[in-house]
């Protein structure tokens, strides 16, 4: 061989395939300010719409007077529920089987609810118009406390549901009740508790917060009256679903609806659902025949479109004296706000909360969830998590710490004692899931060794003694979290959205020169799909990642997919990509065999092409095969080299991880300092370690925010008191701790490339690590559970309540 022949390593490296820390190709445009977001879409004659919103949490709408508004120069129309009724769109279906007002119909049910839509020639005129619309309200008593929702005399919120004793998910027990969802064996669980040597019960709340992507929700709707076609540019995490929903509710033929998700500035679940803004902009465009833009501002985003969490979880564990868990019982009071607009797979009213047994071998468990209405914004979206998995992980991880405290055991030891063992996989959990793979003890021990766990505990004991002697005002906590996620929704046997199975898809077309395009049904919001999807293809078919263009988000060109949320892209779309690539490879092998004049079975794959077994110098590269595909295919074979795959996953994937947080808290001010945060993630096969690290950094930063202060809080009258970034905690680089990341690799046995998904793990696992650190710090003063968020004043209050400050 001459010196010019690349080595195997060089050929491998040139592909920049799986495992390579390939730089993000989308960053070339993002870092130069050349992204193309919805607000960059500017069409000739485009109008702007904006909402009149309710100042009240609960009120009757007596009258809407638009006379003065219509006199404002530039204001063209004021749309109200009455207008929408003429096209049967005053209400819209939600993803959770409920209906939601598009514009206030007789009543408002939460502060900042959409009341009227003002359409004008520019945004300023629209806002001037809003200020001139006069709405007469008759305030009604607001229902804010979820624990009072099912009181006998609780105000009736949803008058439209009067007399409906059954909802989308079964019987309703009360006028403010939405559903009850139960899983598990009640009798067996009750028996386990009766026999248990040790039990405890604690109400663990996960407060209401918000995904708060930096780019808010927005759209441009443009209806072409001549063609009868509606084009919608929107911040949609699931563009195809939006197309189908629009077809169903607007009664437009689906082929005449074009949905385009351009670059998206973060989604985190906020951009899965359908919002009144989309409907109003579409109706306004259909009525005026002009494009209409709607862009939320920050306050609107935080207060109106899709909160997350708000789960109040009464948790009980049964255990032996030695700390072997024998049963789990959880009741959740789920505050869904004014309409049930959760974005879960349709048959899952509480998402996959039944992953609440976590990483532990519970012989039996029972779960019930009551969903209720309150005078708060609707939503309940999966904020960087797979459908209520974050709530479940927080619940069980906090509960394991409480049990450890009760038993006088170390929380890490308690976890090691109860982990599902490697030989138990595939593991059938007491609440009905089949965990695909895991090696929990190895990950936990690696984490403990890296942070020198036992030394931390010694330091903590010494500091506690010093605190008791009055020598310091600081306390120290070590927060341990070991989470198991369930992602990759999902198998058609249990997952659908409005009847559409939750598969995903990929179409790959290779061009004659050995390059190609891959179109995928997922939709990146910053995750880096353009980079990583090409890496999967590079490894599968030997075309350099740089030569594959990845395209997502245009429903006219991308194959139907269910979009990106719930860490489903790699588990589902990623699998479809690998499967499409394998179809291509199979055809390529036939072409290569024909050209090399051997039988297909005599060929073997070698990095970037085929070679004849036993004759390593007889090869045909993928690049050459691409050329041949367009001029000399075997007789009878169709020319071209392309494939489509729709992938219906056989199971979910179950990523896991071990996180440890070390924190000190000054009891006098409540100010905390995160001294160390170590995150070990096992997401199976790693496609791009750099992107994984970035995802983990981002998710941990969100987890930090949520645990330490980020909340949507209402006062007793139903006013949102945290409606801007001044009060809604969005950490900057200054507040954000340093992150240490690590990994183990336990591939998924059923996924084509063994990958599990990682984007959401750090949010899921991070929150309990922070909260456990705070709780661990205070535990020696006598507390068992302190509710989140752990912001400064609440830490001080905890210290005060425990007698540690005067």
């Amino acid at each position, binding site marked *: 061989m001459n010196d010019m022949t690349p080595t195997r390593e060089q050929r491998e490296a040139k592909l920049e395939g799986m495992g390579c820390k390939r730089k993000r190709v989308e960053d070339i445009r993002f870092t130069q300010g050349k992204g193309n977001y919805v607000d960059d879409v500017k069409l000739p004659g485009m109008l702007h719409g*904006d909402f009149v919103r309710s100042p009240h949490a609960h009120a009757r709408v007596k009258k809407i007077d638009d006379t003065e508004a219509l006199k404002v120069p530039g204001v063209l129309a004021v749309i109200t529920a009455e207008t929408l009724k003429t096209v049967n769109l005053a209400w819209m279906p939600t993803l959770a089987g409920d209906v939601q007002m598009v514009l206030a119909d007789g009543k408002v049910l939460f502060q900042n609810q959409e009341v009227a839509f003002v359409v004008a020639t520019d945004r300023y005129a629209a806002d001037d118009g809003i200020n001139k619309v006069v709405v007469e309200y008759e305030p009604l008593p607001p229902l804010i406390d979820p624990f009072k929702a099912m009181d006998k005399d609780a105000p009736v919120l949803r008058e439209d549901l009067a007399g409906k004793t059954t909802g989308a998910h079964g019987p309703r027990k009360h006028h403010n009740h939405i559903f009850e969802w139960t899983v598990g064996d009640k009798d067996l669980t009750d028996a386990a508790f009766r026999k248990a040597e040790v039990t405890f019960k604690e109400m663990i709340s996960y407060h209401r917060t918000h995904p708060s992507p930096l780019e808010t929700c927005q759209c441009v709707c443009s209806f072409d009256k001549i063609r009868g076609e509606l084009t919608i540019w929107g911040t949609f995490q699931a563009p195809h679903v939006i197309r189908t929903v629009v077809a169903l509710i607007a009664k437009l033929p689906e082929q005449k609806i074009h949905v385009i998700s351009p670059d998206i500035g973060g989604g985190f679940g906020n951009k899965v659902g359908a919002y009144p803004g989309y409907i109003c902009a579409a109706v306004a465009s259909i009525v005026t025949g002009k494009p209409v833009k709607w862009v939320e501002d*920050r306050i609107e985003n935080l207060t109106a479109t899709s909160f997350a969490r708000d789960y109040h979880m009464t948790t009980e564990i049964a255990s032996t004296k030695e700390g072997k868990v024998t049963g789990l019982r959880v009741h959740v009071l789920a505050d869904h706000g004014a309409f049930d607009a959760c974005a879960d797979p349709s048959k899952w009213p509480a998402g996959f909360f039944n992953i609440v047994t976590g990483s532990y071998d519970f012989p039996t468990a029972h779960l019930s969830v009551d969903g209720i209405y309150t005078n708060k914004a609707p939503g309940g979206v999966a904020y960087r998590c797979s459908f209520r998995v974050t709530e479940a992980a927080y619940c069980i991880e906090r509960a394991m710490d409480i049990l450890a405290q009760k038993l006088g055991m170390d929380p890490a030891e308690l976890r090691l004692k109860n982990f599902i063992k490697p030989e138990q996989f595939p593991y059938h959990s007491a609440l009905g899931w089949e965990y695909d793979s895991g090696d929990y003890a190895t990950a936990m021990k690696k984490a403990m060794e890296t942070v020198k766990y036992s030394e931390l505990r010694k330091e903590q004991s010494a500091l506690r003694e010093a605190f008791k002697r009055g020598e310091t005002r600081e306390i120290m906590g070590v927060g341990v979290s070991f989470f198991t996620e369930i992602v990759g929704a999902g198998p058609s046997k249990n997952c659908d959205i409005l009847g559409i199975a939750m598969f995903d898809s990929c179409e790959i077309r290779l061009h004659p020169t050995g390059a190609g395009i891959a179109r995928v049904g997922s939709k990146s919001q910053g995750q880096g799909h353009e980079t990583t999807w090409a890496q999967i293809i590079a490894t599968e078919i030997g075309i350099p990642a740089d030569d594959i263009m990845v395209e997502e988000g245009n429903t006219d060109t991308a194959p139907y997919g269910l979009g990106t949320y719930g860490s489903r892209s790699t588990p589902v779309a990623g699998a479809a990509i690998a499967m499409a690539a394998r179809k291509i490879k199979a055809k390529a092998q036939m072409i290569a065999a024909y050209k090399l004049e051997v039988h297909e079975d005599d060929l073997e794959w070698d990095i970037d092409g085929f070679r004849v077994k036993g004759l390593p110098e007889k090869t045909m590269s993928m690049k050459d095969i691409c050329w041949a595909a367009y001029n000399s295919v075997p007789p009878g074979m169709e020319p071209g080299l392309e494939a489509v795959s729709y992938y219906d996953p056989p199971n979910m994937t179950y990523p896991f991880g071990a996180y440890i947080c070390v924190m000190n808290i000054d009891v006098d001010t409540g100010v905390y300092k995160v001294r160390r945060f170590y995150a070990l993630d096992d997401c199976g096969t790693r496609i791009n370690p750099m992107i994984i690290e970035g995802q983990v950094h981002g998710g941990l930063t969100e987890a930090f925010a949520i645990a330490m202060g980020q909340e949507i809080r209402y006062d007793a009258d139903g006013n949102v008191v945290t409606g801007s970034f001044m009060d809604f905690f969005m950490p900057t680089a200054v507040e954000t701790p340093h992150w240490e990341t690590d990994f183990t690799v336990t591939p998924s046995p059923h996924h084509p490339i063994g990958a599990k998904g990682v984007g959401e793990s750090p949010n899921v696992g991070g929150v309990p690590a922070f909260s456990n650190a705070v709780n661990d710090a205070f535990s020696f003063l006598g507390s068992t559970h302190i509710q989140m968020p752990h912001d*400064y*004043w609440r830490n001080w209050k905890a210290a005060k309540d425990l007698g540690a*400050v005067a």
Partner: protein
Amino acid sequence: MIPGPFNYYRPATVADALKLLSTLGDEARPLAGGHSLVPMMKLRLATPEHLVDLHGVADLKGIRREGNTVVIGAMTTQHELLASDEIGRSLPILDETALLIADPQVRYRGTIGGNVANGDPGNDMPALMMALGASYRLEGKSGAREVAASEFYQGAYFTALEPGELLTSVAIPVPSAGHGYAYEKLKRKVGDYATAAAAVVLTMAGGKVATCKIALTNLSETPLLAEDAAKAVIGTSLDPATLKKAAAAAEAIMSPAADARGPVEYRKHVGGIMVMRALQRAAGRAS
């Protein structure tokens, strides 16, 4: 978050600015850095019909020493304070405080004049001005007057400024060489206003506090001069009991509002702690 309509003016002299303000009347507002006023306009909490932008008035800029006084033009930005050698030398507490105001973007635009004239109890400079014994030069069409910072603040967004008046400069007596100073501010994150903050300027003699001024930010409708707290530390070596006494005296005059930063009790409690910490740090710096 879209402001209502307004007219925009950009005068080149103080006289022109004053003329505009008096002819345009009550609905006119001076615009400095805009980092307090524009957010209020975007929420339509402020809806001025006329904005008189002061950026074209060269006379309102600059930092100069006049004997034992430092005079700072109203339109001097917080960033310019940080960049000034004169401030670094004679009024280092201004640097310490400016660095605790928001972020570089805000400091590039936000002015000292706007900060002290605004009347928001969350602004940090006013308490500092009280502790330093500063005065403000107010000019109106009927002439100029000097008002002490300690006399200027009347309530949240209510100040001694009369309609049509401009605050043109701030005059700060230079504290004696060897003075100790500290600004202690508890905030939730970068870009947040104080949960509680305390400014201390003191001198020490023979290990004991000789003179002391203490002022508080965001612990009442206006900035507060904590006179009893300051009296309590004079002649002491700031032993723990004295510090506690000072904190208690300061807490006695605080009346913060409960907000997302915490309930009243917490804000007062940490207000006291800020006083103690500022006293200790200031004493450590004094010579």
